[in-house]
């Protein structure tokens, strides 16, 4: 029978299907971090258990860490204790930890792929909703809660109900200045923040095939923002070329055999999806959000919806409340609006390709004097690479502040926060109320749109930026 890519991987990992219930799904790789793991460790210890397959678990510290002076003890006591707890738990249970100071440390969804740990055909989980990122390699990857982290510790399995399958096809060529971040913001704006709930999404079509691995990760990363269980892209030559030679990728002796296996990971021609959506790439403009969920986005030259004309009462109330929080007006454009902060980072857009794009744009320019710009590489390896390529020099000359690897101002948990009432153009994934700090107002956009605003100090269509005189 014809199968989807998702079904091929899922079926291979089902240990048992409980009658009228979920499946026992075997997990190949389990990533953990300091915030959602301590209660799970405590849980198995209370049951007198050891971690069942510690060699299939990889840990890092990313959410609750400072991005300045990482060599010093963490100032905030609760944060220090939480990170210390991770160190102790990993030691006790023989789990590999890439903690602060380790050359592999970084945001969990950046380091897994860049180290070659993330591989096609795998099942991957982490106590973090953006685990969907790893689906870019043709893996089933999804976020789980702490009780489920405990399940994986105890048995290397989770109980999961099989989701429905959706395919989103994007055909054609992207406009200049449109990045994969714009593609995913466009999709979410089209189908809403709950439009894919209950589904696992496969992204396909020529526009997806043409993307780099970094760009594919950005798309899969935000699958959860439309409610999807996860998102995935079939592996191809782009995937194999990215992976070859990485630290934990299969070595030369196994390489050919593995690639042959991975080449079987595609959706059969006559496989059937529960839902299909077709999008023409030329419809997509650089995107920006105006509201307090990632589905409230518009083209950079567009206008905020006129709330009076929204027929659905729930949606209308929602947008009115969002605009009130954001201090924005119904029917108005965002273009030209001043912003006080630019944040370039997070598991969505902090990879070397993102930094290169930003550097290319800001080279020879200076940031606007009224804007604070923070650029946070996703990992120690990205930071090192940026330094080696001379990107840091460009950022410093532009007046950007470069930080050390971590989740930083994406989630208002560590020291990096946006002050109440101020606007931040952010390359991260969520614009929820208070997400970047209590009262902070987030406008989600691509790294290019964020960089353009850093230069001009206002919401800008990157395509209209005057070239630098050389």
């Amino acid at each position, binding site marked *: 029978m014809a199968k989807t890519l998702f079904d091929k991987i899922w079926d291979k990992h089902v240990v048992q299907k409980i009658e009228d219930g979920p499946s026992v799904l075997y997990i190949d790789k389990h990533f953990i971090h300091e915030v959602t793991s301590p209660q799970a460790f405590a849980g198995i210890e209370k049951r007198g258990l050891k971690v069942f397959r510690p060699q299939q678990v990889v840990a890092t510290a990313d959410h609750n860490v400072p991005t300045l002076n990482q060599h010093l003890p963490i100032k905030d006591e609760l944060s220090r204790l939480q990170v210390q707890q991770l160190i102790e738990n990993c030691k006790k249970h023989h789990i590999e930890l890439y903690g602060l100071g380790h050359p592999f440390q970084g945001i969990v969804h950046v380091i897994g792929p860049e180290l070659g740990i993330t591989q096609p055909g795998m099942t991957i989980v982490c106590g973090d909703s953006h685990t969907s990122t790893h689906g870019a390699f043709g893996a089933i990857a999804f976020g789980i809660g702490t*009780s489920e982290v405990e399940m994986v510790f105890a048995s290397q399995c989770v109980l999961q109900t099989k989701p429905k399958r959706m395919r989103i096809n994007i055909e054609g060529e992207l406009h200049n200045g449109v990045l994969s971040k714009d593609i995913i913001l466009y999709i979410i704006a089209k189908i809403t923040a709950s439009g894919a709930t209950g589904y696992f999404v496969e992204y396909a079509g020529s526009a997806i095939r043409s993307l780099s691995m970094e760009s594919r990760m950005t798309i899969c990363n935000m699958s959860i923002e439309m*409610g999807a269980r996860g998102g995935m892209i079939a592996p191809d030559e782009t995937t194999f070329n990215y992976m070859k030679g990485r630290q934990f990728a299969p070595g030369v002796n196994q390489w050919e055999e593995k690639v042959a296996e991975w080449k079987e990971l595609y959706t059969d021609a006559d496989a059937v999806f529960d839902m299909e959506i077709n999008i023409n790439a030329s419809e997509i403009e650089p995107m920006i959000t105006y509201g307090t969920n990632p589905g409230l986005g518009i083209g950079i030259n567009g206008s905020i919806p006129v709330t009076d004309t929204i027929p659905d009462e729930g949606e209308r109330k929602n947008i009115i409340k969002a605009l009130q929080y954001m201090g924005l007006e119904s029917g108005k454009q965002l273009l030209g609006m001043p912003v006080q902060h630019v944040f370039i980072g997070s598991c969505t857009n902090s990879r070397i390709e993102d930094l290169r794009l930003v550097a290319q744009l800001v080279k020879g320019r200076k940031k606007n004097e009224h804007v604070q710009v923070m650029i946070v590489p996703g990992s120690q390896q990205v930071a090192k690479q940026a330094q080696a390529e001379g990107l840091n020099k460009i950022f410093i000359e532009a007046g950007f502040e470069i930080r050390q690897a971590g989740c930083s101002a994406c989630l*208002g948990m560590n020291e990096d926060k946006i002050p109440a009432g101020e606007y931040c153009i952010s390359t991260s994934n*969520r614009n929820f109320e*208070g997400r970047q700090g209590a009262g902070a107002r987030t406008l989600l956009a691509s790294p290019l749109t964020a960089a353009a605003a850093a230069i001009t100090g206002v919401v800008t269509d990157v395509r209209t930026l005057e070239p630098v005189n050389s």
Partner: protein
Amino acid sequence: MQALQKINSRFVPIPMENIDTDQIIPARFLKATTRDGFGKNLFRDWRYENNDDTKPKEDFVLNQPQFSGEILVAGKNFGCGSSREHAAWALLDYGFKAVVSSFFADIFKNNALNNGVLPVTVSDEFLAKLFQLGNANTLSIDVEKQTITIDATGEQEVFDINPYKKTCLLNGYDDIDYLINHRSQIEAFEAQLTA
């Protein structure tokens, strides 16, 4: 996990859609390493002025004494966003045993069930009816029968719950017990994977 069979209680309405887990429990309160005590920060930034817990916002329902009970009723797409199980812990710690909505985000739904908090999915019409009820009304939820009833009028809806999860909830079983009991089967599966 605590077993859950029936709830009969007044309810707290939040007629808002897309309530994300960052609102239920903001990230700055996730620094704890235990599951306890999250209830005091439930809906923290909607509940207090300027993060000051001596200044409750009077217009927020948790600060209005006429609303109380073990059931939270909220708009569609409840629990979207971050996978933080702290959201379920905060609801439970505050005293909620069930959340009623017309639509739940997937990860939240799993997290709630894994903590004995029952997500009850009702129709848009039934939800709208609940929001129109006065604060003195009580609701009855019966897990065995899978029903939710407005006590005053007898209006009732049947809700879906996976039969396996229903058994767990009624008896207080958890998934981890189930998985540990199947370890030998998991080991056999692993052996076949590498064969």
